[in-house]
């Protein structure tokens, strides 16, 4: 009876140690990934501003110039992240699953149901550039 309890406690102890090491490893792993991402993350990007173009696909963004009113949308489809890189008749088309959005970024055809993410930006008129907050 005494030996069985002892064996049982040892097993629990070993399992607890393994679990502890695993959780600690996971914790460190997670922290490393978060820190690495934080350190390597690009905070903003500066691109040439083409005010003459109504829809401009640049980097991972769609710069919309609707009669002088500029709007920057993420080109990441809100359905599954595909890069939107085509427009037809002022509709932004996702090539992967057929979603489409209007120039406000609102979905007009599924499967996407959320609007495209709107990005903050500043314009440098002197250099004709746009800086987008990533």
């Amino acid at each position, binding site marked *: 009876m005494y030996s069985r309890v002892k064996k049982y406690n040892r097993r629990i102890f070993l399992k607890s140690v393994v679990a502890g090491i695993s959780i600690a490893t996971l914790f460190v792993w997670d922290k490393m990934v978060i820190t690495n991402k934080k350190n390597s993350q690009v905070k903003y990007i500066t691109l040439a501003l083409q005010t003459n173009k109504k829809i401009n696909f640049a980097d991972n963004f769609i710069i919309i110039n609707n009669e002088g009113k500029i709007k920057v949308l993420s080109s990441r489809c809100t359905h599954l992240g595909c890069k939107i890189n085509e427009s037809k008749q002022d509709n932004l088309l996702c090539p992967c699953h057929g979603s489409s959005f209007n120039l406000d970024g609102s979905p007009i055809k*599924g499967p996407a149901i959320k609007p495209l993410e709107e990005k903050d930006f500043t314009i440098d008129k002197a250099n004709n550039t746009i800086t987008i907050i990533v």
Partner: protein
Amino acid sequence: MKKINDILGKNTYGQISLALLLICIISGVVLAIPYDVENPLQSIKGMLILNPYASFIRNVHFWSAQLFLVFTLIHIWDYFAKKEKIKSKKGIWLRLSIGILIIFMAMLTGFLLKADSDSLQAFRILESLTLKVPFIGNLLASSFLGEEGDFQLIYIHHIATLTIFISIITFEHSRKIWPISQTFIWSSLFIIIISYFFTAPLHDGLNLTVKGPWYFVGFQEVLHWLSSTSTALIIILIFLILIYIFPYGGRKLSFFSKRSLLILSLAYLLLTISGMFLRGENWKWIWPWDSGYSTSVLETYKSWKVDFNTSDTLSFGDSNSNNKESCILCHSDMLGFTPSHNPEAVGCFSCHGGNPYTTNKKASHKGMELIPGNFSNANRSCGTTNCHPEITNRKNSSLMSTLSGMISVDRYVFNEQDNPDKLTSVDDLRNTAADEHLKNMCVVCHLDNEKTETGPITEKSRGGGCLACHLNHDAITATASFNHKNNSKSNDYLKYHPSISMQVTNNHCFGCHSRSGRISTNYEGWHETTLSVDEMPNTPEFRLIEESRVFTAKSDDVHHKLGIDCIDCHNSYELMGDGNLYAHQEDQRVISCEDCHFDGEPNTIAAENLDAESAIIASMRFGEIIGKRYLKTKQRDIPLINTEYKNDTAYFYGKNSLKKYILTKPAEICTKGTAHDNVSCSACHSAWAPSCIGCHNEYDENEPGFDMQKNIEKNGSWVEYVGEYNAHAPALGIRKSDSSQEIIPVVPGMVLTIDMSSFNKQLHDSLIFQRLFAPASPHTTASKGRDCKSCHYNPIALGYGQGEFSLLENEIYFNSKYQNNPNDGLPEDAWINFLGEPKGKFSTRSNLVPFSIEQQKNILKVGVCLTCHEDNSDVMQKSLYDFKTILKKQNPRCIEVY
């Protein structure tokens, strides 16, 4: 299954999978040598084009991986199909179940490592799905996928983590490292054979269809229908749970698991087939018989055999282009390109298609477009995403594509349509009398008409899509092309490429626009005669066009005299459409005389406010645009990019010639008084306009004909018997709108007879007669306008046709030159009777009318004054301001009519 098992003998599905895994691992190790994780796509292109051995190893790696997956799935199926359960330890079975997911991940990471456009999109999908995994999604995505565009982590996990995991679970499961040698040998042989014949896919970067690997396409179809992507993860989890519970559940649970997996697998198979073969661009459903199927679907599966004969001497040399194509290796010395279409910039493939990844002549030219730019291929040549999609998307709205007005008017003339302004298209032509007439006589002049032969644009050219305007041969390329077509042994045509440019010359327009209204010939000062070639005098006053049409010299347009080209006035939105459909030319046209010859404040636009197309064209043609102000049109505010408004002066530049002109205001007489406010510039300044009268049309079933829509010869055709061609100052008519009236030039548009019974034998003695006048823009502008009498005391101007007025006792009499037509009692060349009004159909537009009787009288009232008073006389000049007051002060000797 039993039979297959018998055939296989010792070669069980598991054994084959093991053999394929081994081949895949070995070929992967070798493939790592030419593969460059820093520049994956270019390294693969390099293998395909210049290193057939590497390409072959890549094929071995690809096909062994695909078949490994296939045989693993069959192996699992085989296990499920067995009646007795072979139970392994729960831990091993758990790892095996997870192993299925790992195998898919290994395959998928291999797909990502191609780094082509399919792979880049697949990366984003995989990343999004991974991020949806509760609690550890972010950790997994960052640890196993890394940053977009950086393939380091994916590569490491593909070659190490996932491969090691698969190897371990395979060993743990089978207790074997090496497959049976016979299985390995047969598998290797099979892989070698298919690797030779079928090159592993690589997306060409231009085809807009984006598809995952074949085993993922069913899932892509599922995702198309799912807005909630978390559901997709649950589906994957259900698959894994069903597999896991199969051996350990009770009888009922196992049966449930088996049946569920069977149904789900069959459903997935159907989704895979539909995804692979019935989905095209933007995941749109497309049937095999729909247009564009081969491009959207079949082209994405193109494959070719490895060419081990690739010459060792082939090299890209010092080219730094990221757009490596095999075409350049053979066609490297070609000359003639404009900078924007130089192969260094755009490659060959983006225009001509074919296969840019093989040096095998036959394979590389397979599916190639010899003449890109025809509308049948424009969307995937000129209109690809990185080139001119905005234009090719709207080109079909151009009247030069639809021919809406031409078709509608012809149907109206044949009494097949109740008005001449309906929107239609050349694609809507049927088999009616009018449509056959159009097919026989007219519709060859539309942009959709395919250019089928190489060579320069000539006066015989019709259609040709984008090339109709943008193809330019110089003397060298034209000669090379001519020699090639005439069986010369010279290969010069392979050295010289015609240029594709914005230098659209008048010759590009000439082929089509020297017909009907004949604005091209008018502009250059040539009027068509009814002379035959034999009758043509051999003097400079005559010109032969298209080897059969004899023209005689008249005054050319003042703008032609100054060296101004067609495109100097007509802009891209007029010519290539602006996305809106228009019924007639004058509706689509935006340029008008007043846009350049304005009086008062100019209508301008700053360079920074130009639309993208205008800005690009302006900067390409004239360099720096910043700080400039341009004139823009009154209609639709289209910028005139070859103008500049600076220091209170407006300048005009030739788009091709770059000549500079100072734009002049209209002459004082044009704006003097209020009497002519509604008279268009062209009503006064058109020196002459061609007109045809007395044309007869009948159908001859024995006449060798031509279907201009399909470009095929056929028996039977409408035949036109022309009457007489005249050239004189045009008649005038009124174009009405809701708010205004404008006096414009008009010409006999459709004055003809049609023998309907010749087309339809059941219609006995059915003769249609029409006398329709059409609005004209003659393009014969003279700097000096018509004199006053030319409008006010001229029977032609008023629509009565040629003839003479005579005055007798305060009455005007008209004596026509031509006899009255028996069909309507009017002189052959008239629009209306003297002081008469039209009856029935009279115009090719709903908004075009002749002068009313009251208006005719008012015009003639002034005309009678002009029989005594000079144009510049004080009384006539004063009449421009207040004619009524002048009349009240009339001298008793004056003639008073009406």
